[in-house]
Structures are given as C-alpha cells and as structure tokens.
C-alpha cells in the first residue's frame, strides 16, 4: 500500500513538474477569439444585445457567457457566422431580424441642442451648438440611439432606399417558378 502511494506520488510529482513548466512556458496572452467574434458583429454599437457595444458582447460570447443570437441588427447572417466560428448550433435571432433603417433629422425643426450628436456612437451627426444638425447618411448605422434624446422629436428613422444597384434578388419561392406573368 505504501509502495502504491509512493509510486503514484512520484509519478504525479514528475508530471506536476512537467505541467507546471509547460503552463508557465506556454501561457496564452490574449484571446484571439474575441477579435474574431468582434469582426463578425455588425458594429452598429446599438446595445440591443444587452452589452454596451459590440466589443463587450464579443468578449461575453468568448467567455461563454452570452448566447450567439442576441444581436438583432446582425440577424441570421451573424448568428450563422458565429455558429460557424464557435462550433455552436445556429438558432433564430432573439427578437427577429429587422429592416435596415437610417435616421433623418427634420432640419426645419432642429434647435441645435447637440444632444443627438452626443448620443451617436459613430459620430455620424454633424452640427454645433445652436446650429442645425445633419446626419451623414453613409455613416449612420441605424442604431436609433439619437432618436430618444432629441427634445423636439425631430429625428425619425426611415428605411434605407433600395436602388437597382443595391437591390438584391429575392430568395426563390418554390412555387413561383414557371408561373406565367404579363
């Protein structure tokens, strides 16, 4: 019995040394998975996922604390990409996918209070105190964060306009094939 204990303790001691050495020698510094997750997120920075922005959400996902389907702006695409990256099963997006919107300021009503400007996470609003504010269309992520703060309710969300160049073919519906038109 003593031999048993001794033998195994010795074995463990040797292995312990080895492992201790290995653990020091090969410490992983940063978590590259966070960056990978972050790269997939849409960077709307809207906070709908319950985290203060995309990067914190990415960290939470990497830590295994958050599910991968909490980003409504990202929709199905992001869930699938995350599922793929992390080897988890894809599931429907929490809250469902949303139509793409951008904000627009009614320039006649704006009083130039700069509140929206402070709220915008991506600096897509231009203006200065007491001056009319404008949203740079190409930069607005449609996060809606500026809508709430406006004291005169002059910001509204409108769907992004589709042009022939940005139009996408609809997903085929099985039964529409070979149906005559005109």
């Amino acid at each position: 019995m003593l031999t048993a204990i001794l033998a195994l303790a010795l074995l463990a001691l040797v292995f312990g040394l080895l492992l201790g050495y290995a653990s020091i020698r090969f410490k992983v510094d940063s978590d590259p998975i966070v960056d990978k997750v972050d790269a997939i997120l849409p960077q709307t920075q809207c906070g709908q996922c319950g985290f203060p922005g995309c990067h914190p959400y990415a960290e939470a996902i990497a830590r295994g604390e958050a599910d991968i389907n909490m980003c409504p702006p990202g929709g199905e695409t992001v869930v699938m990409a995350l599922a793929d990256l992390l080897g988890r099963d894809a599931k429907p997006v929490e809250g469902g996918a949303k139509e793409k919107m951008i904000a627009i300021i009614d320039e006649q009503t704006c009083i130039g209070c700069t509140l929206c400007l402070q709220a915008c996470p991506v600096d897509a609003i231009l203006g200065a105190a007491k001056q009319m504010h404008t949203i740079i269309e190409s930069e607005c992520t449609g996060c809606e964060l500026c809508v709430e703060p406006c004291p005169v309710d002059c910001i509204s969300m409108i769907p992004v306009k589709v042009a022939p160049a940005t139009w996408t073919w609809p997903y085929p519906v099985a039964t529409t094939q070979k149906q005559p038109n005109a």
Partner: protein
Amino acid sequence: MPTTIISSPHLHGPANVSNVMLRVVYALLPAIAGCIWLFGWGVLINLLVAIATALASEAAVLALRRRPILITLRDGSALVTAMLLAIALPPLAPWWLVAVGTAFAIVFAKQLYGGLGFNPFNPAMAGYVLLLVSFPQEMTSWAAPAGLRSADLGLVQVLLHSLTGTLPAGMSMDALTSATPLDTLKVQLGMSHTVSEIRGGPIFGLFGGKGWEIINGLILLGGLWLLWRRVITWHVPVAVLGSLGLIATLFHLINPELYASPLFHLASGGVMLGAFFIATDPVSGATSRRGQLVFGVGMGILIYVIRSWGGFPDGVAFAVLLMNMAAPAIDYYTQPRVYGHNRG
C-alpha cells in the same frame, strides 16, 4: 411593381423527376417478371406490401410535417425505393418483414432527412440491412428457384403464408426454401470443401446459381435500357462490375479452389441490381464522373471483401451503405476543375 420576380431561364428541357423515376420502374419490370416466374407469387406480394407501405409511410410523414402530400408522392421515388427493396427481399417473407423494412427505409433513411434528394443513405439498402441484421433468420431463408423446389404454392397460399405464416397442410418451409448460391458457397468453403465440389451442387447453373443467372440477365437488360435512355451513365456500373470482376479474376487465378470465378461473382446475389439500379441512385451516390468511378470501384472491392472474408454471404447492401457514407467526402475531393482556374 411586379408581384413575383421570375428569373431566367424562361425555357425548360423535357426532363423531370417523375419521368426519371418512372423509367427506373419500367427498367425493373423484366426482372420482376423473371423473379415471379422463378420464385413464385411471393415476389408479387412483397412488391404490393412494399409499395403500399412506402406510400402510406411517406404520406404519414408528410402529413405530420404539413407538407403537400399528393404532389410529393407523385415524384415516384417512394415507388422506386419500394420496388427495389421488395425484389431484394426473400420471396416468402412474412408481410411484416417487408412492411418494417420499407417503413424504415422511407421514414428513417429518407424522410427524416427531408425526403427526396436529401437522404445520405440509399433508403432501400438501409431498409434491407436493417432487416438483415435484425431478422437474420427470416432474411436467410430464400425460396428455392423453380425446378429446385419440391412443392409449389398458389397465389392464395402465398398470401396466406405472408399474412399468417401458415402453410398448407403437409408442406414445410424446408420444401420451399433452399440456401442461395452465395450462402452455400460461403458455408461449404467454411467446411473445407473446394469450389469445384461446391459448384457441382444442384443449385448451380452454368456459371452462377441456377435461375439466378437469368434474373441477373434480365436486370442487366433493364440496366442497359436505362443507360440507353440516359437515366444513368456508364461510370458506376462499369466501375462496380469492372473492379469486382478484376479482383475476382485475380484471386481465382491464385487459387481457383478457394475463390470462385469472376463470372460466378458477377452473376450472383445482388451485384447486377446493385451496379445498375442501386449504386446509380443519384441522391445517395457520388455526383461527379470521377467520383462515380471511385464510388463504383470502392463498392466492387467491398463486395468482394465482404463476400470472401466477411460474415455475410453477400455484401452489396453493405457496400452501398459504406460507399454512401463516403460519397460526400468523395464528392468533395473529386470536384472538377472550374473554367478559368488552374489545374490542381
């Protein structure tokens, strides 16, 4: 604004799934007639039970999934599955055996994956193997071919047997069944008989089993018709038959008393059916031409290995399932070179 957007092309060729499946059915008819002539009415009853079960179970799943039933049933694939399974089963099988196998084929091997086109395994062979491993006794008692059985059953008697398991008084199952040529070969080789001794037995014909040669010929006929109608291509059958024939020749030359002749191998068991009707199943097989060759060669090798050294007298069904398993990987590694991409 248009209501629905219709994409080009605005023309369509003559091919459609139902036609393809129907052609397979037609191609099977000569072999079925031959089987009925050789093995008796049991074959017909198997067919009827299988078809009824296949359609019913497919309809049941579709109903559960709230999918259109009639349109789907009309694609004919369940019919093909049922027919192929039915002629692979022992002619005097009880009805429940046929029904269990067919239902498993349709429900588990096909519909659970989403139905026609999605199943990774060949449904008919999945059903067959299920029966083989679950009910080996029922699956190994084959009706003796015409001329070799000491008694004959009429249609009603066979029906009665299938439904209730009873035989007319004074008739025993032994009088109606006999071991198949492959089974006999395997068992007797196990008893250290030589091939030529075994081949001298009454159930053997010119080069294969008595009667089996004819059936295989009829299947070959149907298969050639399929080839001619361009339902299948030559790759799979040639690869299967070629590789099996080649290996069999090789071993036969090494020791003819231990290894049966290539002709015997080609004309026995399910090889012809497998090569022309089963391995050619587009859904569960490999798609690319090169992939089909790999698929067929793999099948030929497996058939020979299982027959010669494995536990089962015939290996066609297993070979099909095993190659089905490999088909996605084969497809992945045999992609054609795309226009404008470098070789390799």
